[in-house]
């Protein structure tokens, strides 16, 4: 695997749209070719070379390419978005859409990310070693297809509207979340190690939510059904199982109604 290293040399004045910073865009390119890829601040068209010192060269394909980014990326959007393979490591906080529409590969952010990250993620591994903003792993506006695959892990806290319209994959949040977790969820698995601030699993149709901490206000459409022993993300514990939002439609499979499940650690 070849490594390309990007080091921020000029900070953007506005926010920089880095839709070309991903393994697929870099694949098969040398440093000087990568430097010529477009980067955008509003209507001003510049290149990655205007903002980054670029060393190394990419592999022939995305899968053979690793990108390491150093320097302050707080005002950079779309890093690692739509990547299908390979690896991206960002040693900074990032702005919006980091890892969104990701289909494969590995993305690690050693810092915080802003809102709309991991949006409609379909595959791969995305690890945020900091806090995440709002709409993590959610669907794009209007879409009923949110995160559908892959593994998304946040070491810190996440914001509001996390995993809205999630249909598959696995999300682990080691800290706390703000209001609305797993709203409209229709599949997949959420593991919350910390606490939730209201409205967990509202309008949930299918899928599983595991909560290790507390939920300060429980949704009225949840009904405790039994106690279960489970091993969740490496932790064995006793959980109370709730049936999903009973106000929502639930599909039938083989004559049986399918409910969503919420497990609260006891």
């Amino acid at each position, binding site marked *: 695997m070849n490594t390309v290293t990007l080091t921020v040399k000029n900070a953007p004045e506005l926010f920089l749209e880095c839709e070309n910073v991903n393994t697929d865009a870099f694949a098969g390119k040398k440093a000087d070719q990568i430097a010529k890829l477009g980067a955008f601040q509003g209507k001003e068209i510049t290149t990655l070379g205007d903002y980054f010192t670029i060393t190394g060269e990419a592999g022939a394909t995305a899968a053979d390419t690793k990108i390491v980014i150093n320097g302050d990326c707080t005002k950079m959007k779309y890093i690692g978005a739509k990547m299908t393979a390979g690896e991206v490591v960002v040693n900074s906080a990032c702005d919006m859409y980091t890892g969104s529409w990701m289909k494969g590969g590995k993305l690690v952010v050693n810092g915080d990310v802003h*809102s*709309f990250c991991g949006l409609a993620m379909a595959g791969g591994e995305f690890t945020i070693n900091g806090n995440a*903003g*709002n709409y993590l792993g959610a669907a794009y506006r209007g879409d009923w297809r949110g995160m559908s695959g892959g593994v998304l892990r946040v070491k810190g806290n996440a914001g*509001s509207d996390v995993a809205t319209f999630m249909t598959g994959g696995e999300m682990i949040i080691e800290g706390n979340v703000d209001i609305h977790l797993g709203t409209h969820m229709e599949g997949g698995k959420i593991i919350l190690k910390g606490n939730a601030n209201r409205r967990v699993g509202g309008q949930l149709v299918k899928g599983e939510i595991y909560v290790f901490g507390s939920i300060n206000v429980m949704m009225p459409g949840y009904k405790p059904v039994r106690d279960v022993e489970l091993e969740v993300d490496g932790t064995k514990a006793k959980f109370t199982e709730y049936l999903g939002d009973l106000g929502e439609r639930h599909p039938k499979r083989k004559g049986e109604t399918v409910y969503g499940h919420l497990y609260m650690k006891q």
Partner: protein
Amino acid sequence: MEKKITLNMITCRTIQQGVGMEAGKTSQKYFDACTIIHMHADDMKKLGVWKNTNVKVTSSVGSVIVKAVETREDLVPGLAHIPMGPWANRIVPAYTYSTGEPCFKGFPVDVEVAANAPIMSSIDVLKDACGLLRK
């Protein structure tokens, strides 16, 4: 009686605010309609203010001087209301939860008596915040 009470703030339209707005943002009607805080009688008692006393309302983003009044549209104790306008917006948190909508309703404020503090005009309250007010 307490020096300072914490209330849950909502900012809403009122018909007086609407009339005042159409009369002009610098009109007396607008000033009268918007430079007030509606509080429940119990909260006013708790704070020890009479009707029409100026108070200082402080949120996480700033403070504003308005006049405490009892409302025609009943509130529950603990809930307070300032009509929509530059005075209310002096204390509205701009955080949007990534929805575009700031926290116009449902944010905590501290209310304390400020009987002698003057209420600024609509333009001044904005200019003051933006550092454009020339004294």
